[in-house]
């Protein structure tokens, strides 16, 4: 008969084996494991500390094949010129404009409002003095030099007065789209003149990205931000600088970041006001999902919460509303640029729409797009004229296609930045990046300043605030 104990009974335990052999095996096994673990850990630490440097090859962007002759490394002074013909042509085209009324009650929500555009154009036609603006542009020394087959334009502003015990710090400042070197004209005197707060004066180099303004456009495919960075390094070397600081916003952010990745020993400090994450990592995603509930876990403060959430609206809907230009420029730049290079009014609408919406996206609900709240029409139109007179709109747009064409996971986007970095966080910037996200890429983030006001074109809009932050950051690095 089956009973419980007959069913559930165990055989007696076997006698224990002799201790010697198994113990030796166990010890050996453990030792190997520990060794592997230690070795792995060391390798990991070592790997992390080994600073990766971005690699790049030389390029040639001129027409046809590179010549056999030695490269011309001379630097020529350059003056921006205009002529009666240029103005006449501009006015004829402005007068030929065929306006189309905007929908009733649409303000700037369908793009640049047609009725307000007529006002801007009227000022442009009758009051804007391009000759005077050209003189203003020429107040600083401009130069051109040929690098990798194309003429690179740049400003070189030396401080007029260097008081005793004041250091002269070289800095390269790179603009973006649809900006230009002119964005920095308000900032330059604040950096080049001595300040009461510190004993620094800056020597400013302000190039135009190839394809923008007075820099020649590349003739070959493939000119991306790394190529621009490499060319700007060559420029700085040609000017005799062994070490310098770099500042950038919009595309300038990426070009200067690439410069820091290419030659981390030469770029002493990197200051940016725009830093969209190039590689959304796990921590970024987690912080977005949970940051609302556990802000302290991710170092989020009130400003971060207010600017990141609600997630759907701010991280998805808003970018979709505002990136139509990016989509078409990254795919069909030659098509969209064609008309813009013929119609100055169309060009102005296209460019100035950004100066409205990217300064504050609430401006979309204003009849005049709030355009003259932070900028003067003279300044805005001078920037437009740089694009118009140089005919560079199409080549400026190609930069989008060249940068996005190879996909989002380029070597430079996966590589961190080891150069001391300062980040100026402006409240109305297109994309808000909390400290956690900035640190993912910029491993030596030395300063993160939450600015009181300002949007995407911060250097032009709030030059005082920007200058202060650049100075504070530079002083911090110099003192080390």
């Amino acid at each position, binding site marked *: 008969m*089956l009973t419980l104990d007959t069913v559930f009974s165990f055989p007696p335990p076997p006698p224990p084996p002799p201790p010697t052999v198994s113990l030796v095996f166990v010890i050996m096994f453990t030792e190997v494991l520990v060794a592997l673990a230690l070795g792995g850990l060391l390798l990991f630490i070592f790997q992390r500390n080994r600073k990766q440097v971005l690699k790049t090859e030389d390029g040639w962007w001129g*027409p046809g094949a590179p010549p056999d002759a030695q490269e011309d490394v001379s630097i020529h002074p350059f003056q921006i010129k205009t002529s009666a013909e240029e103005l006449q*042509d501009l006015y*004829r*085209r402005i007068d*030929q*404009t*065929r306006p*189309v*009324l*905007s*929908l*009733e*009650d*649409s303000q700037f929500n*369908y*793009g*640049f*409002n*047609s009725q307000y*555009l007529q006002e801007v154009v009227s000022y442009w036609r009758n009051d804007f003095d391009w000759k005077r603006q050209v003189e203003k542009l020429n107040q600083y020394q401009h130069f051109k030099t040929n690098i990798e087959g194309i003429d690179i334009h740049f400003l070189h502003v030396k401080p007029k007065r260097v008081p005793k015990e004041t250091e002269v710090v070289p800095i390269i400042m790179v603009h973006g789209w649809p900006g230009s070197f002119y964005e920095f004209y308000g900032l330059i005197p604040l950096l080049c003149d001595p300040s009461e707060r510190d004993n620094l004066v800056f020597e400013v180099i302000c190039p135009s990205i190839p394809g923008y303004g007075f820099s020649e*456009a*590349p*003739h*070959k*495919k493939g000119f991306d931000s790394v190529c621009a960075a490499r060319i700007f390094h060559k420029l700085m070397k040609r000017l005799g600088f062994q070490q310098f600081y770099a500042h950038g916003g919009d595309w300038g952010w990426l070009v200067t970041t690439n410069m820091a990745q290419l030659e981390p020993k030469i770029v002493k400090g990197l200051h940016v006001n725009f830093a969209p994450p190039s590689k959304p990592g796990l921590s970024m995603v987690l912080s977005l999902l949970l940051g609302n509930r556990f802000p302290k876990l991710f170092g989020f403060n009130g400003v971060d919460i207010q600017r990141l959430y609600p997630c759907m609206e701010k991280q998805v809907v808003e970018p*979709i*509303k*505002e*990136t*139509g*230009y990016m*989509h*078409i*420029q*990254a*795919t*069909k*730049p*030659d*098509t*969209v*640029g*064609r*008309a*813009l*290079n*013929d*119609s100055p*009014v*169309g*060009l102005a*609408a*296209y460019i100035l*729409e950004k100066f409205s919406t990217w300064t504050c996206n609430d401006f979309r609900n204003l009849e005049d797009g709030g355009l003259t709240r932070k900028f003067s029409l003279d300044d805005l139109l001078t920037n437009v004229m740089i694009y118009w007179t140089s*005919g560079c709109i*199409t*080549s400026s747009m*190609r930069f989008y*296609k060249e940068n996005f064409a190879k996909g989002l996971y380029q070597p430079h986007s996966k590589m961190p930045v080891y150069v001391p970095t300062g980040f100026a966080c402006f409240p109305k910037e297109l994309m808000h990046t909390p400290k956690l996200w900035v640190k993912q890429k910029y491993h030596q983030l030395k300063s993160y300043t939450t600015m009181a006001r300002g949007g995407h074109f911060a250097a032009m809009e709030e030059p005082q605030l920007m200058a202060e932050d650049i100075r504070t950051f530079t002083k911090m690095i110099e003192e080390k």
Partner: protein
Amino acid sequence: MSLDKLLRLSTANFSASLALLSLTSAVAIGGILAYWVFRSKEAKTIPIGHGWWGKGKKPLSEDDQIHTFTITTSDEEIKDLHARLDLTRYTDPLEDSHFNFGFNSTYLKRVVSHWRNVYDWKKQVAALNQYPHFKTKIEGLDVHFIRVCPPSRENQKVVPLMLVHGWPGSFYEFYKIIPLLTQNHDGVAFEVICPSIPGYGYSEAPQKKGFDSVAAARIFLTLMERLGFSQFYLHGGDWGSAITTNMAQMKPDCVKGLHLTMFFPRRNFKMSLSLVIGRYLPFLVGFTREDVRRIYPYFQKNVWQMLEETGYMHIQATKPDTAGCAVNNSPVGLAAYILEKFSSWTDMKYRDLSDGGLERMFTLDDLLTNVMIYWTTSSMTSSMRFYKENFGNLINRLDFKTGVFVPTGLAAFPNELMHNPKVWAQTKYRNIYSYTFMPRGGHFPAFEEPQLLADDIVQFVKKVGKI
């Protein structure tokens, strides 16, 4: 354990399992019943609504007369065009870029040279006027249309058919197919009505926000009513497809048949699943071999390619006033913008050609006439706004969630922007009478392959009307 204990346990289990089985089947049957009931309560039409799109306030009465209209031009118009063409500031294309960066500037110069020196707009206007044009005011807008009757009414059934164009096309796309449709096809001939969507060509542009495909559909239904048609057929592609679909959803009793060249399914889980399975087991999900050939590789064709080609859609759906400003002032810019689509959307491979393959299927004269319709009417900006009005409110659109129950004919052209197999189309179009795999043709089939398209429309109508 004793045997009787075992038996008792198993009996208990048996009744337990029986109970469980009954419960699950009850739930299942209940669920199916509920689904069936819910499904039959699903809306079969969309509300007609109302609107008024003119300037300022709506007046007390509106002129509902139909006025004849003739397209005219003048020496000033042509001189102005030529002056602007001469002022063009070209930018050299990048070496070896063909049409991959957009419209190639070197080839564009050849097109413009033809436009400036050979193209005869006055002759084209005469050609446009070969059919009778009309205008009539509906909802505050002057709606333009052409109306072409068959040469004779004897010995044949005359069937009314409305053809609706899209972007960047116009009523002119149908000029090659109209004579084929008004012919006698074994006792059937069409009376063709071809309107311009408000904001396009000679139809007045809306002045108020909110003019979407549903509004256009309602206006075209009013037009057919005003013309005295109580029942008619519809054909559309591109925006025309969306508008005619809306018309069939609003008044299915009036729409005898709906014929489309571009159509979208109602995306659902089943569709996504079939996408994954269909590559390996096509017959399991209802794909034919031709479906498989056209859909896969899916990511390449439908995701990357779409991203590469929808920049225009993105900017037009968000900032049409900005995007339209320059193209409305530069005829060359306008031509590049429009003709780029006639290249890529006819065959994506044309992007690798220096001339974009533009003249392989079209003549420069035909292409430029379409461009001239946009140019002379200054309608590019308003045509772009249609994108914003339609995409602005995607989540709340009732017509997207509603099916189409009128007899439908679908013509699937191989180089259309996206291929939708019959099983997917059936999620929206519930009464498909014909689904034809066309042997050749892209996004502008009426322009490119008028005979093929006409044949398909005829066979569809005969099927529906049992003629």
